[in-house]
């Protein structure tokens, strides 16, 4: 492990001209003039990252809270076993044996609640006697974050087969969650047990000035810090080869999901299966026969690490990316919900509109910033293509800023934010993010040719207002340079909503970027022409309108 780190640091030395390693190949600490460094931070996704099994009593209650805690700590949840998952005990036992996780998180019952259900879950683990994936000599760590009263029972059942680490209940009462202690325990155990199995880890641990974190956990930490620091709602997406991670902070609540089978290389076949061929093909601007498109995708399945060399391959890749991002967000919206099982207080006014619990927190109108990460977004040939992919996939509403991560610095900044949050934020906004600009999109369907809104743009330092008129079925791009700020006043037409309500004007400050401002009048959802020739022409027109193609 340290060999790789040393190689990377040597490359950094060459780029910066700063000496970071001593003669013995160790990091120079602290800095002294032109040599050394003050803080070394590291994240790890070695061995496929932290893989966890989560258990809880009711799927939509304690099991979901436990899943949230595990995902928030940067783990990949291999499976969730609960009392109502409609599996028989022998099937659950077989599944635990088969999975071989790095760690188990057992939750269930509110404090003072059910003991029998938690004991039954513990018995499943005892019967399965799971062995860890890495390391033969140590017992599998189990974080117990359930009902306090059931602790003695769990201990009695599991003491001789797993290493139990009790922490505070993730759901002490059904009305609130307490995920912090479980997350911290997962981090600590990840370091002590899981990472300790990796060669060279002990050495690396002595180098790092801040505890090593799982990579996705560190990204989540940064997204959470950014949202808290600016008081905004943030959606972060990291589209990888095998998985897509989605991070969000809405109403101050952080959520992370991992779409395990949606990615651009190893999982590309699954993207096609999950989205359906017609959904992928609808984004294509070229007239390729269906069998040709399928063959190119299958070629990618066989050789997953290849990158597009032809324009047609790039168009297919970007079409797949749109669908992978769309499906990931759908899965995220289904998971990022308000708590279920909570007692409600109603008034007579709610007689005919009784909203249920478990409503999604993901509200695209409320969203302020979308951060895209991953090769297909960060290394798109044109930034405009990355912006268009994110708009097409996420369908933002109202006014939303867009940005991409330049060199996947977010995990490291996430760790750094633990020690030096101000430095982390400055690097994040100045070097890590590549701002693309802002998108303005009204909600609802748009009639072709109808005037949707008029926007007055006042650039800072330039008193002359500029007016943009957006009609249905069009995309309009207005240049607004990187770092340039402007105040926009949007006057929507009657029945059109851009955030303040139907027909109500909105005034917002926006920051420019590589693309500038994009006004999206295509409606939500985007209406495609059923005729393939006209659809392709329209797609090309939209792409040209914002400079994504010539």
């Amino acid at each position, binding site marked *: 492990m340290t060999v790789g780190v040393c190689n990377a640091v040597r490359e950094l030395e060459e780029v910066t001209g700063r000496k970071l390693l001593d003669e013995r190949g160790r990091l120079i600490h602290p800095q002294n003039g032109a040599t050394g460094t003050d803080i070394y931070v590291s994240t790890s996704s070695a061995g496929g990252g932290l893989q966890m099994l989560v258990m809880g*009593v*009711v799927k*939509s*209650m*304690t099991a979901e809270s436990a899943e949230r805690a595990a995902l928030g700590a940067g783990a990949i949840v291999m499976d969730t076993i609960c*009392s*109502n998952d*409609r599996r028989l005990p022998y099937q659950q036992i077989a599944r635990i044996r088969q999975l071989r996780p790095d760690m188990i998180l057992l939750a*269930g*019952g*509110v404090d*003072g*609640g*059910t*003991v*029998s*259900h938690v004991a039954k879950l513990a018995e499943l683990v005892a019967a399965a006697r799971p062995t860890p994936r890495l390391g033969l000599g140590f017992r599998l760590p189990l974080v117990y974050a359930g009902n306090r009263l059931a602790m003695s029972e769990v201990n009695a059942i599991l003491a001789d087969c797993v290493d139990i680490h009790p922490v505070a209940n993730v*759901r002490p009462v*059904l009305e609130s969650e307490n995920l912090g202690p479980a997350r911290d325990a997962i981090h600590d155990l990840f370091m002590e047990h899981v990472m300790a199995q990796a060669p060279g880890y002990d050495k690396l641990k002595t180098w790092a000035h801040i505890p090593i974190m799982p990579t996705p956990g560190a990204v989540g930490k940064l997204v959470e810090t950014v949202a808290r620091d600016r008081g905004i709602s943030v959606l972060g997406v990291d589209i990888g080869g095998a998985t897509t991670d989605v991070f969000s902070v809405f109403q101050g609540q952080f959520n992370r999901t991992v779409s395990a089978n949606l990615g651009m290389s190893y999982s590309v076949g699954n993207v096609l299966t999950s989205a359906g061929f017609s959904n992928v093909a609808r984004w294509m601007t070229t007239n390729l026969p269906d069998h040709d498109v399928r063959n190119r995708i299958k070629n990618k399945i066989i050789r997953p690490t290849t990158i597009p060399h032809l324009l047609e391959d790039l168009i297919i890749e970007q079409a797949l990316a749109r669908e992978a991002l769309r499906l990931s967000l759908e899965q995220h919206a289904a998971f990022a919900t308000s708590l*279920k*099982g*909570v*007692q*409600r207080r*109603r*008034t*007579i006014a*709610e*007689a*005919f509109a*009784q*909203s*249920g*619990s*478990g409503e999604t927190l993901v509200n695209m109108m409320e969203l302020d910033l979308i951060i895209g990460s991953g090769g297909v977004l960060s290394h798109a040939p044109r930034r405009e293509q990355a912006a268009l992919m994110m708009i097409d996939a996420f369908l933002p509403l109202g006014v939303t800023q867009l940005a991409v991560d330049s060199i996947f610095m977010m995990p490291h900044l996430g760790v750094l934010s633990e020690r030096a949050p101000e430095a982390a934020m400055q690097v994040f906004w100045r070097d890590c993010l590549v701002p693309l600009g802002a998108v303005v999109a009204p909600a609802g369907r748009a009639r072709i040719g109808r005037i949707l809104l008029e926007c007055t743009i006042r650039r800072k330092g330039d008193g002359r207002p500029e007016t943009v008129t957006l009609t249905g079925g069009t995309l309009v791009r207005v240049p607004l340079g990187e770092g340039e700020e402007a105040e926009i006043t949007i006057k929507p037409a009657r029945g059109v909503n851009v955030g303040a309500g139907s027909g109500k004007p909105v005034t917002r400050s926006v920051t420019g970027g590589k693309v500038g401002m994009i006004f999206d009048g295509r409606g939500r959802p985007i209406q495609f022409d059923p005729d393939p020739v006209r659809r392709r022409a329209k797609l090309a027109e939209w792409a040209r309108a914002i400079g994504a193609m010539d």
Partner: protein
Amino acid sequence: MTTYRRRQPAPVKRLRGAALAALLTFLTVPAFASDRILTETVTLFRIPASWLDAAASTDADRMVVKFDVTRLPVLIVLVLFGSFFLILQMKARSGAHLALRRLPGIDAIEEAIGRATEMGRPVLFIPGLNDIDDIQTLAGVSILSHVAYIAAEYDTPVIVACRRSVVLTMCEETVRQACLAAGRPEVFIPNNMRYLSDDQFAFTAGVNGIMLREKPASCIYQGCFYSESLILAETGFVSGAIQVAGTANISQLPFFVAACDYTLIGEEFFAASAYLSKEPSILASIKASDWLKMVVLPVILIGVLLATLAAFEPPPKDGSPPSQRQRAVQLLKEVL
């Protein structure tokens, strides 16, 4: 190839029979009991008396079969409803999806049982105060079947409190069958099926006692309730339970809406069995009544419009015949 049809649970069958009986009663009794039948009838056909009585010899003795014209709208509604029902039932049986709008109250039942499971407490179910001959009680028992099934899956006890002994027997059997269907017969606890009292407020006091002593995490009220509704719902709220109510008693709905987490209002309560069972014939009857409403609503609107127009029409002068417009308005008013 042999095909197997899923057996319907007994309460569903009874509910359907009762609903059909109620519909027939509603349509036929007023038609024959109308006091205008002798004055506003048309002759449909005449049966020669000789067909009925060999001794009759003259045509004057023929039996006259008449139709009450004032009940014509009921006939139209019956024919429309029957047609809609048959069309939709055929559609449903051929595999077409008959969508019902989401009922948060029914969806919340699983959540309420989940809450009870996490808290290690029972679920309390009350199938109303009326006896088994009340359609609301039957609808409540149908929902109980669903509640007991989910509770058995979650391994959570269900307490059923009844005011009538016959209802108790039916509830007992329903819960037992649901536990068997869920594959967990051991979850059924006979002592949790409780008859409290025939007296309204003695029953209410008994239920309140259960709420305060056994602290159920979820209270589900489905059936006919009277003035005790608020007492029950308030006690349930204070005890910290999630409450799901459903009744067709309009006067009690405001209390349930204000004090419960979810309330099934009027028709939603009867639609619940269709929503839960997804049985084609029950779904078809719900959709048929929706279609009928879509037909009736415009007719009502036209009627209101015509009645308003008629109010501005000057009265006919003495002796002069009514104008054509007046006659049309009068005829439509009669029909509507």
